[in-house]
């Protein structure tokens, strides 16, 4: 078995207020070279914070702990200075809102050139040429003109393409895409996702795709981690997790999607809301909202474990739960 490209081992992120509270608590994630992996969950479940912690990008006040291994090198997540070595060349990241993510006072080409300067040995003129090439590669017409444009002169889709071009220019081995299409129109969304898929294949990059959109995940990713309240509650191949979810939370998520697809008159929802960070249940964090909960669930938070024949899940009753109604027709990205 090939070694993982990236493995996150027991990642926790502590917030300043209330003292000691954790936004992410003991998360393990592995990504193989060239693999497209998704992290899904509601907003506030800790998926973005997990991604930021891997590059030492957490906001001041937040502290991360745990180990990160990337291409055989091991890092302590609290050592943000060391993590800087990964940025760009090894791991590149694109973000949700492509407008605020570009410096408003600088032509996008110069921003790209700055990134190339930090990550390649190209000289000034070679950088300028490379910028135009990269813009052309991500499907931007008139790339030389766009390189001189300012962010406010570009549409949302164009700006996200610029960021993707920036990422590709670093030739990273892993691309982290944090909800890259959430701020875009639906039509543009599909274009961007296809572009990402093409680039990932062409450059042999791995991708960590952070999303709350199970549809996109089903279409573009091979494996998925489901996060809830700062923990991974289920993981496995996309096809298996979405068509035969094990954890009650994943079931609930999938059911929301299924009822929507089936044109049901009543939308299924997950009752209740994510527990607040300063009032985490002692037991299973999903227990207050779980329709399968029993009294044992209140006692302790179950660790994630292998469930025979069903991937990994963090549920006491994983084996005994009735067969779920999953997403029909979900095919992993690899079979297309």
């Amino acid at each position, binding site marked *: 078995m090939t070694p993982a490209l990236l493995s996150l081992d027991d990642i926790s992120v502590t917030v300043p207020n209330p003292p000691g509270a954790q936004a992410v608590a003991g998360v393990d994630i592995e990504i193989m070279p060239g693999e497209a992996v998704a992290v899904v969950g509601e907003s506030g479940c800790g998926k973005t914070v997990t991604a930021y912690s891997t*590059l030492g*990008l957490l*906001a*001041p006040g937040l502290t991360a702990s745990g180990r990160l291994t990337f291409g055989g090198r091991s890092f302590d997540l609290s050592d943000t200075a060391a993590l*800087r070595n990964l*940025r*760009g*060349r090894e791991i*590149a*990241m694109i*973000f949700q*809102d492509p407008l*605020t*993510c*570009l*410096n*408003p*006072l*600088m*032509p996008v080409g110069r*921003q790209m050139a*700055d*990134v190339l*300067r*930090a*990550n390649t040995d190209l000289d000034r003129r070679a950088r300028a040429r490379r910028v135009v090439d990269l813009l052309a590669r991500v*499907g*931007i*017409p008139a790339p030389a003109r766009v390189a001189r444009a*300012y962010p*406010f*002169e*570009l*549409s*949302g*889709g*164009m700006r996200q393409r610029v*960021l993707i071009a*920036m*990422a590709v220019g*670093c030739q990273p081995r892993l691309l982290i895409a944090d909800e890259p299409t959430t701020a875009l*129109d639906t*039509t*543009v969304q599909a*274009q961007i996702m296809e572009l990402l898929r093409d680039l990932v294949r062409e450059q042999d990059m791995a991708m960590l795709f952070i999303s709350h959109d199970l549809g996109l995940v089903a279409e573009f990713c091979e494996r998925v981690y489901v996060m809830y309240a700062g923990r991974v509650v289920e993981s496995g191949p996309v096809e298996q997790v979405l068509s035969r979810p094990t954890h009650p939370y994943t079931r609930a998520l999938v059911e929301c999607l299924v009822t929507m697809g089936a044109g049901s008159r009543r939308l299924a929802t997950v009752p209740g809301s994510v527990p607040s960070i300063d009032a985490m249940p002692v037991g299973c964090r999903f227990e207050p909202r779980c329709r399968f909960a029993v009294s044992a669930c209140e006692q302790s938070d179950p660790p994630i474990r292998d469930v025979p024949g069903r991937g990994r899940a963090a549920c006491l009753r994983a084996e005994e739960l009735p067969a779920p109604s999953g997403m029909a027709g979900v095919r992993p990205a690899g079979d297309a």
Partner: protein
Amino acid sequence: MAEQLSRDDAGTARAGSRRPVWRPPGWVRALGSSLAQAFVVAMGATFVVFIVMRLIPGDPARILAGPGGSVTAEQVERTRRELGLDQPLLVQYWDWVTAALRGDFGNSLVLNDRVSDLLGDRLVVTAQLSFYAFLVAVVIGLPASLLAARWQGAAADKIARLVGTTGIAVPSFWLALLLIIAFQGVLPTFGYVPAGRELADHLAHMFLPALALGTGLATLVFETNRAGMIDTLGSDYIRTSRAFGVSEWRIFSRYAMRNAFLPTMTIMAIQVGTLMGGALLVENAFALPGMGRLVVQGVLSRDYPVVQACIFVIVVVFVVVNLLTDLLYAVVDPRIRRSRA
């Protein structure tokens, strides 16, 4: 792909489909509207000054015609006509403004001298003091704000807040007295030496006054720029640059400093008028022969041409500096320079 892209483009780009035949580029319109606004403000402010001066009781024609009872009604009328005081107010205002722009502020009612001659050297002193104070503010305030932005935290926040509050709470003219008390016998605390004669001596004499006047502005520059830096350093686009491995130093020096400085620059420009007003007081404490003494005498003796002229100069400087700042902003900020909307 091309077709999809054009849709993508037209979907969100504002300039898209209905492009007018020709519209002037953003900076031209920015220039136009800045000029127009500066003009309106300058006219309005000088008009206010002009009207206020007309509230001064007493008949300037009578005062100017000659002393006491020796003047006949006829002489007073002649003076009135000569000075244009029999014209409608708006005409008088226009005559005054156009003459003032040529540097002609009329004659002092009290000192028997042309106001422009009275202003001359004093204006230089006040301008020098304001300029040095400005330098003090920039030289102290900006580096301090950069350091404070580099080392953020709860304690730094408290200190910054205290500095800001103290900056407003310590009046420049009292700081002047404190500096005089503290540096008596060490540095010159009295009088003025022209720059042309002995530069070192000139600077020595201006040092304490500039420090007294500039410290308040320095705290404002510090506070504004620190807040701007912290804001910028926490922005999404800085995070992007970090994520892509751009060095922390380059981010700080190339991205954050530039972007944070724009709002600071605007605030500093707005302070120019206040700074010159403060200069009038600080000059008084250090016995500098600037406009301060002149304007105070003018107010006390109701010498309205003198007071009018001093205020006119300050208003014009304020408007011009703010106009230049607007234009600089339009040049630096592409959203204004290149906007077509």
